[in-house]
Structures are given as C-alpha cells and as structure tokens.
C-alpha cells in the first residue's frame, strides 16, 4: 500500500538553511545537506528545499548546493523558489534535483508547465499553488508569497496544471499558513476530487492531529511542514508513530 508521505521543507538563503534549532548530535543545522540528512535518517520520505534568496549571487550558490544535496542524500528531493524558465529547470535537473516546484512563473505563463513536463516528464514538475479564500467565496491563487491575488481560481487552476502536465500539486492555504491552526480539510478533499494527481498539503500544521486529519478527511497524499520539525516540537519518527496508530499507512 502506498504510504502517505511526510516532507520537511527547508528554506535556504545564500546556501544556508535559515530556520532550525540545534538537534541533538547535529552540529551544523545551518548546512542544508546536514539537516536534510538528519531528517532522512529520522524517516522523512522526501525533502523540499526552497530557495528564498533575494539576490543573483545567492541564487548561484543554490545550484551548487543542489549538487551537494543530490550527492549526500538518498531519498527524493524537490527544489523550488525563483524558477521561471525552462533553463532554470534544466540547471537544477543537471545539478541532481528529482523534482522542481513552480509557482508564480506558472501563473504568469502556464505554458511553462507544458514545456518542462514535455521535456523532462510530469514526475519532475510540482505545481505549487498558494491560494487565499477571499470575500467572494472563491479560493484565488496568489503570487509573491501570497501578497498578490490573481484571478485564477484554485480548482480550475489545479485542473489546468494537471492537464498541462503537472505531476503533483502542492497546495498552501494562505489563510492558514503560519497560523498552526490546521488545514482547510474540506477544501483539500474537494481538490483531491478535482484532480487525479497526488496532492501535497502545506501550511497550517500545528500538531500531529492536524496532519492526520489532512491525510484522511482531506485526502492529501503527503504533508509538508517546516516549523513543527525545525523547532523540534515533534520528530518525524514520533509523528509517523502517531499516524500509524490511527491506521494511516506510513513508511517506518
């Protein structure tokens, strides 16, 4: 049986992870390879590295880092942040990334999904959607870290992304992101009914119970989280043990 995936997300700036407390036995949590290896050892099923660099110099560092991650880690990893052309995707693929995640660039120019999927396969393309529920009762996809709302509506955009060749959808509710109040599970369930490709739930996890809920009633295939892992509130092993107790299939 296919296991539900638990995916820690690491923010990287200038080649260093920017969050993370000091885990026992792990000297340098700032080193993305070290921290990734630590999570892999704890039982992470995949990793996501998000480049939050602001400058070109920092971005350059990121590609070199992706090569080091590919060399040092024996589970799949996705890279995202600042990918706006097929050349960006090619550069990260060559560096050893298993998947890339695209967001604003796909909204600006949806053909980018077709181009990358056609050349490298759907398995390589994750389309990330940061959506916000607005007063008109619709979920609007946003860009620029959730600050700019677009006229694209979540469900139709997810469907279009799938039809254009996306292999997975990474959905973050901007109404819930950072609140640690749980996920909008009804919206996730509707999204799962709208597309046939896997859905990764992101943004809002405050506890193991929240993650369990989005994987069951929300029908998500995977849960991505950052702070609950980085701040050591729960280990991946403990989370998976709790999920398994509730009958959720996890890899252990």
């Amino acid at each position, binding site marked *: *049986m*296919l*296991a539900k*995936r638990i995916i820690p997300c690491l923010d990287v700036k200038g080649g260093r992870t920017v969050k993370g407390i000091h885990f026992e036995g792990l000297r340098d949590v700032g080193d993305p390879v070290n921290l990734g290896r630590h999570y*892999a050892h704890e039982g992470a*099923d995949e990793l996501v590295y998000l480049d939050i660099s602001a400058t070109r110099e920092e971005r350059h560092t990121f590609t070199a880092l992706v090569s080091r991650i*590919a*060399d040092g880690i*024996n*589970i*799949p990893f996705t890279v995202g942040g600042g990918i706006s052309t097929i050349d960006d995707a090619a550069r990260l*693929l*060559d*560096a*050893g990334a*298993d998947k890339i995640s695209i967001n604003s660039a796909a909204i600006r120019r949806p053909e980018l999904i077709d181009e990358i999927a056609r050349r*490298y*396969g*759907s*398995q390589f393309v994750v389309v990330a959607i940061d959506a916000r529920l607005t007063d008109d009762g619709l979920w609007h996809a946003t860009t620029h870290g959730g600050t700019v709302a677009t006229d694209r509506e979540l469900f139709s955009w997810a469907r279009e992304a799938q039809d254009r060749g996306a*292999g*997975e959808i990474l959905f973050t509710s901007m109404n819930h992101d950072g609140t640690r109040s749980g996920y909008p599970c009804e919206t996730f369930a509707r999204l799962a*009914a709208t597309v*046939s*490709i*896997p859905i990764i739930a992101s943004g809002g996890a405050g506890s193991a119970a929240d993650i369990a809920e989005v994987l069951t009633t929300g029908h998500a*295939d*995977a849960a991505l989280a950052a702070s609950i892992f980085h701040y050591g509130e729960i280990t991946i092993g403990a989370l998976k043990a709790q999920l398994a107790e509730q009958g959720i299939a996890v*890899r252990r």
Partner: protein
Amino acid sequence: MIAIIDYKMGNLRSVENALHRLGAEYTVTADHDTIRRADHVLLPGVGNCAEAMANLRAAALPDIIRQLRQPVLGICVGMQVLCRHTEEGNADCLGIFDAHVRRFPDSAEHKVPHVGWNTIANLEKGLFKGMKGGTFVYFVHSYYAGLCPDTVATTRHGLMFSSALKYENFYGTQFHPEKSGDAGETILSNFLSL
C-alpha cells in the same frame, strides 16, 4: 568497473551519486566495447519507454544489451525496455523479461502516476538478499509490468504488478533503488555483489 549506459533518457546523476556513496567505480558510456567489458551494467531511464527504445536503437544498443552475460540491472524505464512490449507508444521492447507493460487504470483511489513509497513482497534472494517483505521503496511511474514467471518482487497499487524482474543475468526494478534510502542501498550493493 560498472558501466552506466547513457542513451539520453533522463538524468543519470542520481544513479551516479548512489554508486559514489557506495564507493563503487563506474563509467557513464554508450560505447559498445566499454559496456561489453564491464563487470556490471546499469540501464537507468526516466521518461517515455517508446522513446527509450528508439534511443537504444539509434545507438545500436539492443543487440549489445541482449548479448551481455554479466549482471545487468534496468531501473524504472530501464526495466520496462527489457520487457516484451509496452503500451506506451505501442512499442516492442528487448524481450528479455516475459512481461507486458501496461498503463495503470485511472482510479480515484489509486492515483496515476504511482508516486511515492510502497512495499515490495514475495522477494527472491539475489537482489533482495537479507531483506524482508514489506520493505518500502520509492516509485514514480504510470506504466507497470504485469506478473510473469520472471517476477522476483511484487507490489500492489490497485492491482498487483512486478516491482522487480529477473531472467538469467538480467535484473530489473520498477522502483528507484538510488532514491530508496537505506533499503535501496542494500539492493544496489546486493546487485554489485552478484
């Protein structure tokens, strides 16, 4: 020396990295003599199986591969090209494994592509020496090889399919050992000890 066959089917970096982590010596090549002389041969592959067959033909590799007598491991599409035929692009393959490759039926419960960690069972020794059924490995695929006499591991995703195949010196895994954590490293080092 291990030969990783380069036939322009996706990135070989992750396979190279996995061998590097195991401390194995390898070369990435399409040269017939280098492939024939290698102790072990790896045939990775990501993408479209019909295109993979076309690329193998363009490099005059089908007969070279069929005649190999050292251990050969096909991974993912590299396993599928060793089967008889694939529905993907309706292409005849190398016909080493007695299996047909078909697309998973669309289903709400069992999504296509089959992405993520799933268990392997009914393991035969060789590749899976020292391993137990129920081990999780990493899959990414939309097409599967059916069960056949060459099946040496099975996985269920709606239906039951061959997650690994073996015929004489030829081995194939539908999953990616190079991305399957410690279990994958065991499988690769088992292959390298054959």
